[in-house]
């Protein structure tokens, strides 16, 4: 097998897992855009999505196509509860306090999962099939390919919604100027809730895709850390940035993992993170707003 072919296969695999990163990063971006909160519990919400699906599809033996929307709704419900119950009360507090609240939230979610489902890793009922996909001679893992398509479609839908849908426009308006948006009659608190619901729902969806590939476990929230790198590189408030940076980080991880060894993956991505913070803290596509000193 030629080296070029191998390189292409590795790159495609990287793009596939990068799409999952993009999807998770999207959850960060939606929430940050509306409420200026970096929600570190996105990783744990993703885990909850996987477990909800597990409970519905394996526990209650619902058909997969019922379980998937319900699990996403479950993620949205978490978002709604957290936003109304905690984040709303923290309005006006320093961003760091709110950030730490989401760190605490992550711990609570992990504890709840251990409480209800225990710590053993579990596998999800398969809904993707396993027949391999070949693009010409190039092999692509089916699950990765499906995840890629799903992530691409979801991100495209979001981009369209932001442009044409009232709610999307309201969200963009809120992101630009809360007071102005409010005086134009936009229900800003409603936008806050909406962003959290959609963001956490997206994370839950990503969790199901991830769970299909590697099974679910209380530790799978660590995936959120890689997605955090993606949002910093792409820009915290840029949907397109999440997409492009996600694919980029996916590629970097695949290349370093293949040509240097798996132990180099994290150090490279976080090296990029720090470089990015030094050079362009607001990310590739983010709004320049950092006050510099």
């Amino acid at each position: 097998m030629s080296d070029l072919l191998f390189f292409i296969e590795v790159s495609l695999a990287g793009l596939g897992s990068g799409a999952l990163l993009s999807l998770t990063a999207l959850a960060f971006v939606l929430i940050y855009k509306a409420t200026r909160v970096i929600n570190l519990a996105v990783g744990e919400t993703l885990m909850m999505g996987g477990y909800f699906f597990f409970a519905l599809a394996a526990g209650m033996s619902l058909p997969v196509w019922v379980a998937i929307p319900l699990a996403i709704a479950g993620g949205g419900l978490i978002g709604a509860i957290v936003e109304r119950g905690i984040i709303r009360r923290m309005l006006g507090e320093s961003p760091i306090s709110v950030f730490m609240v989401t760190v605490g939230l992550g711990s609570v979610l992990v504890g709840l999962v251990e409480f209800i489902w225990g710590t053993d890793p579990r596998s999800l009922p398969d809904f993707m099939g396993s027949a391999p996909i070949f693009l010409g001679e190039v092999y692509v893992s089916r699950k990765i390919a499906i995840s890629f398509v799903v992530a691409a479609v979801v991100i495209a839908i979001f981009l369209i919604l932001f442009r044409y849908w009232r709610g999307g426009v309201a969200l963009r308006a809120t992101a630009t100027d809360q007071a102005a948006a409010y005086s134009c009659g936009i229900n800003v608190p409603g936008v806050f809730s909406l962003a959290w619901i959609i963001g956490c729902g997206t994370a839950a969806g990503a969790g199901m895709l991830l769970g299909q590939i590697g099974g679910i476990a209380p530790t799978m929230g660590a995936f959120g850390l890689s997605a955090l790198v993606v949002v910093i590189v792409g820009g915290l408030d840029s949907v397109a940035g999440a997409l492009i940076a996600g694919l980029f980080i996916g590629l970097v991880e695949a290349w370093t993992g293949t040509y240097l060894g798996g132990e180099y993956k994290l150090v490279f991505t976080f090296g990029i993170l720090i470089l990015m913070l030094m050079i362009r803290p607001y990310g590739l596509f983010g709004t320049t707003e950092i006050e510099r000193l």
Partner: protein
Amino acid sequence: MRIATANETYLADEALLSTRTQWAWMGILALVLIAAPFVLNNYWLYLACLVAINVASATGLNILTGYTGLVSLGQGAFMAVGAYTVAWLEANVGTPFFVNLVAGGALAALVGVFVGIPSLRVKGLYLAIATIGASIILQFFFVNWSSVTGGSRGINVAPATFFGTQLTTYFQLYWLFVPIAALMVLGAANLFRTRVGRAFIAIRDRDISAEVLGIPLLRYKLLSFAISSFYAGVAGGMWAYFFRSVSPESFTIVESIFYLAAVIVGGMGSILGGVIGAAFMTLVPEILRFGVEIASPYVSNAATLLSPIRTVAFGGLIIAFLVLEPQGLAEIVQRIRRFFHLWPFKK
């Protein structure tokens, strides 16, 4: 009831302990700390040592986060630097433990300055994320620089020796750790009576104003990182003498979150808060253990619920304090004090 304290000199006004009651409380605390090791059994001595280590590290983080307003999730990694330094010196050079601890602190301070460099460019959340990145990169070095760090197995640490006596029991280590931690807390408290400490507070409250006042931000932010990491490094060194082995898996991001949580729960920007917070967060899991033990006859397989309960309690405490009591435990203590000061007037 305390009516008023009239200070005649600035020195008296700045004093750490201004009233007799405070002196009395400090005296009682000192007596308790001295008497404790003769009363406590090995298990509680172990916890006391752990509390001392965590107090030292949390106080350091409090200087950086609580007083200078720079949030760091790298405290665990700085502790690891200190712990590795001590382990390496103990194995390869054999210098006395005191030198090792200071060296551990110094190296951690150096690394801290390096990690602090992004703080010139970014702050707040971005800085917190940069410190996460830095700790992951440090972690990589711990695992892969095997000739120094012993790779994924880590290094075993020989016990500290004090005039030929090996400090191995918790009783002995208590006499090492508690004075060091007390000294470090005292140092931190005094820091904020000096120009440097006040500059930190000025930076926290408004960095632009601080610069206008003639405080060089670059120098003071890095200095704050250095002092905070020095504390972490010394605490890490004590940790190494305590657990007697250091490996990359000893200090993870969870540790860093733990210390930030301790500072938040205790009270950011309060020395007393850092101390109480560290002690509280160290002891909560143990208190929960006793709770589960008491509940075990009534609840089926209570033992297996302990760890999830602890995880939930850890996160729940962070959330509860941030939402309900942002000033932390220190504020509660203050409230109790005020109550007694104003007592019989206000009921």
